[in-house]
């Protein structure tokens, strides 16, 4: 049974399905519906919604509820995410799982509320202090806003680390059919949590390791976790790449546009395919190299002046020429525009 649903609303419904009963947030366009629907829906199933006094407080409330072993989430956009970075670093340092939905808008500064993909670095490289990573998933449809939210909760618990749903204003605001199946969420045991009882009395949630040796051991432990995550959790999707001469690479809303670009180009007999990273961290480097092996050229499209393209270039290690096209400020290129750019770089005259 499908329902016509907004991307931001799908996040909340999926969170509820995942057993998340705690949401701490602060409104910001274009992510506000997530907080609004969390406020509407979560208390109806016995959960807690608190509108915090700031994103700083919201992420620290998340820290508290996660310390107690609960599935918990928050949502925000660029400026709010900047404020949360301190807390995210603490969550990663204390190995606390949580889900953070970011619906990206234009920046830097106040920017505007139109879609951009300019927080890729902040989320995938670690916007806060210290050696840590966020698990970052990039939905490109309303259905994926739900399915990747579910996955984010699972991965967060599995790795005891923040997981980020990195969407953009368009995917958050658009409506598409959403299919949900009612399944009981399997909530993992969290013997490390602090629950205010005899059993968990010895537990400590903390990111301090005072001596250099202890701190090094901790950072190495995190590093191990991240390596395992890189081995096991890369996700991607391809479209018509078998015979592609040029491989287009884009995520989120851009991947939707590029899917149409592939169709348009092929209508004109130009063989192109699409590689869409679903996990931005870990970046699906191996799969990209494998997919690009058969193509002559790679072209990256982003709503930023060049962030993910760095990971594409790192992955390919100079083995293929990488072209780049970007729009920023809230402009999203049409499929026709992307095709024109592609043809210009391919020196195809059509």
């Amino acid at each position: 049974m499908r329902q016509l649903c907004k991307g931001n609303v799908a996040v909340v419904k999926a969170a509820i399905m995942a057993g998340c009963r705690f949401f701490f947030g602060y409104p910001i366009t274009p992510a506000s519906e997530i907080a609004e629907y969390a406020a509407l829906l979560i208390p109806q199933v016995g959960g807690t919604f608190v509108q915090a006094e700031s994103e700083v407080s919201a992420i620290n409330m998340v820290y508290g509820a996660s310390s107690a072993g609960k599935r918990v989430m928050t949502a925000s956009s660029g400026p709010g995410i900047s404020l949360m970075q301190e807390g995210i670093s603490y969550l990663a340092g204390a190995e606390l799982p949580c889900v953070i939905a970011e619906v990206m808008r234009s920046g830097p500064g106040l920017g505007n509320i139109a879609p951009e993909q300019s927080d890729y670095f902040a989320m995938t490289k670690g916007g806060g202090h210290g050696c840590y990573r966020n698990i970052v998933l990039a939905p490109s449809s309303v259905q994926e806003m739900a399915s990747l939210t579910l996955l984010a909760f699972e991965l967060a618990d599995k790795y005891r680390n923040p997981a980020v749903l990195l969407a953009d204003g368009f995917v958050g605001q658009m409506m598409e059919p959403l299919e949900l199946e009612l399944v009981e969420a399997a909530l993992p045991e969290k013997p490390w949590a602090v629950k205010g009882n005899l059993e968990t009395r010895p537990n400590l949630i903390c990111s301090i390791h005072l001596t250099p040796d202890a701190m090094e051991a901790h950072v190495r432990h995190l590093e191990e976790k991240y390596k395992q995550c890189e081995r096991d959790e890369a996700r991607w999707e391809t479209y018509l790449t078998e015979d592609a001469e040029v491989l287009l690479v884009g995520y989120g809303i851009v991947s939707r546009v590029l899917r149409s670009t592939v169709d348009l180009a092929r209508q004109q007999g130009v063989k192109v395919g699409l590689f869409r990273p679903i996990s931005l961290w870990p970046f699906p480097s191996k799969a990209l190299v494998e997919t690009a092996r058969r193509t002559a050229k790679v072209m990256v499209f982003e709503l930023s002046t060049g962030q993910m393209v760095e990971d594409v270039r790192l992955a390919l290690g100079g083995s293929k020429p990488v072209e780049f096209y970007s729009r920023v400020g809230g402009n999203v290129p049409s499929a026709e525009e992307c095709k024109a750019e592609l043809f210009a770089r391919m020196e195809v005259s059509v």
Partner: protein
Amino acid sequence: MSEYKLVHGRSPVFYKRFERKEENQHQTHYCPGCGHGVTHKMIAEALDELGLQDRTIMVSPVGCSVFAYYYFDTGNVQAAHGRASAVATGLKRANPGAIVISYQGDGDLAAIGTAEIIHAANRGENITVFFLNNATYGMTGGQMAPTTLVGQVSTTTPWGRRPNNEGGPIKMAELISTLDAPVYVERVALSDSKHIIQARRAVKKALELQKQGAGFTMVEILSPCPTTLKMEPKMARRWVGETLAKEFPLGVFRDRKRVFEPISVPQASLAEVLGIDGKSVTKEEGHVRRKHTRATTLKIAGFGGQGILLLGQLIAETGMREHMEVSWLPSYGPEMRSGSAHCHVTLSPERIGSPMVSHPDILVAMNEPSLRKFGAQVKPGGTILYNGRSLPEDLHFDGVTVACVPASAIADQIGSTKVANIVMLGALLEATDCLPFTTAQEVLSSLAKNPELTEKDERALEEGRNYLDTEVMVGAQAGPDGCGE
């Protein structure tokens, strides 16, 4: 020989050994004469007396008491600087049965964490805050605190705190007591035995209130920091009593029950909340999939308030019930509140690529600016529906079908300007055959909440269809007067 009884043993709420340091694990890391040791002892003893050890979660802040978790044999969570009361909020909400203590110093609570403490107090979080005010930053080496006295020398106020530069000391107990929710706020001082006994009473009372679920409690504890004051412990205690307590008067600032009318939330099943309970308005009812061979793209534009976005949603919903893939993309943000609004709708037999429509098959222009802005983008062979009796004289569109429908005027006749979008929906379905009329009718009636409006909506849909049926020959190139040529 008289027998001696041990009266000051170590509380069982403390660990037997303090692993903070490699040696001397019977001692804390606090300096001799520091108020933290006394405060820790008071808290531990009160927790023991109240039988709360197992239930307690101590939130350690940043500051000298960052290592409180080395001492309290309770659940422990360490927080970022200033965030202890936000972390405590999350902990308490997730563990309502726990006793959550937010232990904070003056820099943590009254400078960097001012927002967190004020709002935790204002929400009436059922936590206890022990606020240690020693008028200095101890851990970082004696910089100015928000509670540093005017004229008091610190490493960042080398000429003394200057009111003309740093303002004056901030009085948190008084500030918190201006809020409605807190149930108990008291300021005490660790200046001498008499006052320490009073402080002990306050600490226990605050915890007892939390145990009862009474609400937000805070004890501000004026405390000596001999190291940064560069005083003997005895002198430092005297300074707290004679100087600090003069600026920060001791006493009970709030001690009352919280009275309010709670507003309850109706409970629902998971299926209801997720919209998959079968009662959902959005379910698809056994339609046979229509044989659409290609995608139809629409752009709908007009003024904010004309129901532009809703019209798009109705079309998308109808398409979905016809088992098509659909996408609806709005213009969003400030535009929604004034000026223009538009949305893009795609109906397709296959997975949809870009949800953005740059060259629509169908344009619904609910006002003239939209027609001027988007009219030329319509694909050759496409359709324009315009809300008006005729096109503006200077506009002409070649190669597309134009249907002029005075939707707003028809809506006014029906008795509600609001239904102009539904009039246009009726006309659209008649003009383009992109979706079946009956499914749209079902969508409309299932979404409506107000019976009076439902009736008007149904009429609007019907009249939109009829208008085109009788007034305009669709399929022909329409002239500027709206009639087919």
